């Protein structure tokens, strides 16, 4: 075998067009993307499109079953459930992505430093992850939220705090495998500064694994925030949030008022499964 035939390890940026082409052929990815797009549109435009105000009560029409006037029925104080489901995409789709974004920025920076510079940052990170993983996320969040008081901002901060070391660990291992490639040696020979190497040379090449981790984390952020709202420590009333709607109405199931919780449950399930399909599609398209 001549030298010219030796396989060259390509940086990930060169492979981007092929990855996008493969994504567009993945049915799972497209379905997940469609679901997320639908809820994103509801989150942005929903409150101005719905037939009733999601907050207006109508005690004469309380607990009305689904009908032509109220497609999904009404809740205990007569609010239109269809309007609340559509408008309910906004709270969860603002807090969860914000928490994920915050954790991604902090986690990527920490991971780059830990992977490229190593040393004590690396050691502290590993210990931190061990302690965090020893407790269920819901329990950690409860503990902090009892101390700080429940609010959307505090929920966002808690989730970001827990996710930061987890994302940092993924970024760190991606950085370590990049460090063995030729372009890194070239950059070091050119005498580039550490900051330049970390953010200009390495970062674009580890974007695929970061993107996968971010979508996976987004799914877990939605999972956790919805659960916290259900427990009363997340998004607060009178928000049309789905988890909150289930918390307010699940006592009515025995009475047969299934519509007060059924639609909110289906909406939450569709959103998390959509994000999960998206993550799964990204993972299989970007890893090969």
């Amino acid at each position, binding site marked *: 075998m001549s030298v010219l035939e030796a396989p060259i390890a390509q940086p990930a940026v060169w492979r981007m067009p092929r990855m996008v082409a493969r994504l567009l052929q993945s049915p*799972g990815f497209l379905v997940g993307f469609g679901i997320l797009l639908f809820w994103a549109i509801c989150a942005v435009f929903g409150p101005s499109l719905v037939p009733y105000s999601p907050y207006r009560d109508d005690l004469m029409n309380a607990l009305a079953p689904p009908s032509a006037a109220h497609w999904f029925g009404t809740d205990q104080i007569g609010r239109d459930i269809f309007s609340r489901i559509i408008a309910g995409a906004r709270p969860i789709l603002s807090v969860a992505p914000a928490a994920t974004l915050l954790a991604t920025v902090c986690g990527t920076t920490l991971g780059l430093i830990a992977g490229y510079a190593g040393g004590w940052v690396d050691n502290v990170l590993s210990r931190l992850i*061990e*302690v965090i*993983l*020893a*407790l*269920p*996320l*819901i*329990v950690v969040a*409860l*503990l*902090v*939220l*009892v*101390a*700080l008081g429940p609010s959307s901002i505090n929920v966002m901060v808690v989730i970001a705090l827990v996710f930061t070391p987890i994302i940092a660990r993924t970024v760190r291992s991606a950085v370590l495998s990049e460090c063995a490639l030729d372009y890194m040696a070239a950059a070091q020979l050119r005498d580039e500064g550490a900051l330049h190497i970390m953010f200009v040379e390495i970062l674009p090449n580890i974007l695929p694994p970061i993107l996968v981790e971010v979508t996976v984390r987004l*799914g*877990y952020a939605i*999972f956790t925030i*919805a*659960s916290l709202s*259900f*427990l*009363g*420590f997340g998004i607060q009333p009178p928000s049309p949030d789905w*988890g909150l709607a*289930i918390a307010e109405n*699940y006592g009515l*199931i*025995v009475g*047969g008022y*299934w519509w007060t*919780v*059924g639609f909110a*449950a*289906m909406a*939450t*399930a569709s959103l*998390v*499964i959509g*994000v*999960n*399909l998206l993550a*799964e599609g990204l993972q299989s398209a970007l890893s090969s």
Partner: protein
Amino acid sequence: MNARLLAKRLTLSAITLLLLSAVVFAAGQLLPGDVGRSILGPLADARAVAALNHQLGTDQPALTMYLHWLGNLLRGDMGQSYAFRSPVAPFIGHALLKSLALAAMAAVIVVPTAIAAGVFAALRVGSWQDRLITLGGLSLTIVPEFVSGIILILILGVWLRWLPISANTRPGTGVMEQARHLILPALPLVLLLFGYIARIARAGMLDALESDYTRTARLKGISPSQVLLRHVLRNALLPTITVVATQTSYLIGGLVVVETLFRYQGIGSLILTAARDKDFPMLEAGILVVGAAYVLSNVVADLLIGVLDPRVAMSRR
């Protein structure tokens, strides 16, 4: 696993628990306002508040309080509940038993079905059944327990009327009937864990099926079912045990939500009630018990693997 390794493992677990206790205690210190005031209410006399704070020990420096609390914990004294004005330990013990019953029900359902599904998927790798089990299982792990719980209650409890909705039974109910009431609450936990366990069982099976020892066994002329039972399964299921243990953390997190949804008085709902009442001694004890359960289940998993894996058992001799 030899004795030295076990000792090291236990020491590490103890350190994790110690760190955990510090974190839990520190969170308690963040709580604004003083404890005596929040127990007695805004109208209480300032002297009564100060006296109660002194009695509870909440007027001392944080480090003193922490060491005192830790010392009591080691003697088995978990402190006094602010909300109930009585020792925490009996509450924790009672709730822990109820949660164990629920978790056991979930484990009894999920471990065999998930392993069977994983093995089945591995034997038909690439088929639509394989894709359904893998992708479907994984999608279910991300659906919050209260959401799958609501859907299951509506379908199995309200619509089909196959299972009782309530987890609680009247005193004097038979064991079988009590167990039947636990099936519906256990199902959301089953859905949560199914995907992970099935996926690991499938991966372990695929590794074992492609291994040299499986080929050797086949070439020796052993019947396919014997190869599967004696050579493949035994090796394939080892990693599954570790995963079942690490999933304990998800299981306990799930308990908080499921026990709230089904109004079941276990450790999860105890933690949530303590959080709502700002009953910190109860909350701290509950969370530490949860952390200890996680650490313990990991140690047990290590021991089990030592017993089951002949290679590890060999190195002990």
